[in-house]
């Protein structure tokens, strides 16, 4: 019993440091009082209660749950994306997967040190959503890469491959490790993740309400864009199997309008909802921050939604017969034509990168403009966001 008691005492003293500073006295108090309890089971039970308090006050249950969920999802994504032996450029993909997971695990910790943790539920959900999207893209990217890189053995498919990609050894994977492409995607992922972490951190004056509004606008933008470009993005030869004739034109026009108007509207609403300080300069800065956040987040969410949905559809097209049947329903398409379309769709997936760069930039410009042309709603009580940190240029949103 004495060794169990010693272990719990040591574990408890160490665990007390995990409790936030304003609650640490309480956890230490339980440990101090343990000396009053009779030795043996009563003292052990007292300390067990103290550990429960530490878990609760340190919000460790949520933290442990989040990390477990991340570990499970990341493991599943890595397992799905891990290249098999026939892939000659497997080392680059493996490196990419490992570094992506390290970024997803490490950058939030760095962001917490520099900018503080996410304080609102909206901020946490947004971070989780972006992380989930990045994880989902790992197996999607791997499936598409494998399809594009595998040279058909013979026949018309081989001919199509030669035209689209170039010659290669039949039945093998084409090309060597694409380190350049992998590094570019990693830098891009790191920038995206850093931007999301910064916009959702405590010390950034973007209100939770702004994040919710922007995410909603981005979701609409992403879904409309997906309807316009469901299997890769190609401006010269757009392929929209779900839309025909005037419906397709209407959606294209709607998508163009939304690219500019969704972040502008999100910025305007966020700027109007924000209860700004009396000082004119601070008020302008506060509204600009909401517009900036709303625009960047709506553009980013839109780009990520269309990228995940469109790339996912393309990956399923090349992997699943039932998705092909559903996609080409009612069309008389030969097997070789299907292969050709899938090959071009797989290449056109890179077009989503354009959206991933362009949407947030357009978004933040339009968001700031949208917030700039609105005036705050009169008499709005604080509640659209969180209280400002002392000494920072922060709206009371």
């Amino acid at each position, binding site marked *: 019993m004495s060794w169990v008691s010693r272990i719990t005492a040591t574990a408890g003293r160490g665990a007390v440091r995990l409790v936030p500073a304003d609650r640490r006295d309480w956890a230490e108090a*339980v440990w*101090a009082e343990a000396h009053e309890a009779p030795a043996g089971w009563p003292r052990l039970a007292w300390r067990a209660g*103290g550990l429960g308090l530490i878990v609760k006050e340190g919000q460790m249950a949520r933290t442990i749950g989040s990390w477990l969920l991340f570990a499970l999802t990341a493991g599943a994504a890595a397992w799905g994306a891990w290249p098999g032996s026939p892939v000659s450029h497997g080392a680059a993909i493996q490196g990419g997967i490992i570094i992506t997971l390290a970024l997803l695990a490490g950058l939030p910790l760095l962001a917490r040190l520099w900018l503080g943790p996410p304080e609102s539920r909206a901020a946490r959900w947004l971070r989780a959503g972006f992380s989930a999207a990045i994880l989902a893209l790992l197996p999607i990217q791997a499936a598409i890469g494998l399809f594009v890189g595998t040279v058909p053995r013979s026949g018309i498919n081989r001919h199509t491959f030669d035209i689209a990609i170039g010659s290669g050894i039949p039945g093998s994977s084409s090309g060597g490790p694409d380190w350049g492409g992998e590094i570019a995607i990693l830098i891009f992922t790191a920038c995206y993740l850093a931007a999301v972490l910064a916009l959702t951190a405590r010390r950034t004056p973007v209100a939770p309400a702004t994040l919710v509004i922007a995410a909603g606008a981005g979701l609409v933008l992403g879904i409309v864009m997906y309807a316009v470009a469901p299997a890769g993005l190609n401006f010269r030869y757009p392929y929209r199997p779900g839309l025909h004739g005037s419906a397709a034109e209407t959606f294209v026009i709607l998508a163009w309008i939304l690219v500019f108007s969704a972040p502008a509207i999100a910025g305007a609403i966020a700027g109007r909802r924000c209860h700004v300080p009396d000082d004119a300069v601070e008020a302008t800065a506060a509204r600009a921050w909401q517009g900036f956040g709303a625009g960047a987040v709506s553009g980013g969410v839109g780009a990520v939604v269309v990228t995940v949905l469109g790339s996912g559809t393309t990956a399923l097209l090349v992997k699943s017969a039932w998705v092909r049947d559903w996609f080409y329903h009612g069309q008389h398409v030969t097997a070789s034509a299907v292969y050709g379309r899938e090959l071009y769709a797989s290449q056109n997936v890179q077009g989503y990168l354009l959206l991933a760069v362009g949407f947030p930039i357009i978004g933040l410009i339009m968001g700031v403009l949208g917030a700039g042309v609105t005036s705050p709603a009169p008499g709005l009580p604080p509640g659209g966001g969180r209280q400002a940190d002392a000494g920072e240029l922060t709206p009371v949103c």
Partner: protein
Amino acid sequence: MGSRSEFSPQTLAVLMALGGQPSEWQHGYALARETGLKSGTLYPILIRLADRGLVEACWQDEPVPGRPRRHLYRLTADGLASATTALAEAELAAAERTASMARPGADLRRRRGVAAPAVP
């Protein structure tokens, strides 16, 4: 019918223990023994009461040789007022329950909306 107390029975027990000697500082283990609560229940209650300004806490000034300093608690003025009110309400509610149980079928009639028979 008595109003429902804003405190749980466990919290009322803690308030009652602290209210017994409102001017005295008490420590956690003594409170646990008096209320019969375990540390995992007692301390969250004390934390909530302290957050609401009903309990004040401090560390013992003079450490006793051979054991760590203790954390001490007592009711604030607001806490004493709240405790007095809550305990009075709890007593009233308990008395009403006892009276209601003493009248067979009264509770059932009240739930069905049937008036009680006139007492001759």
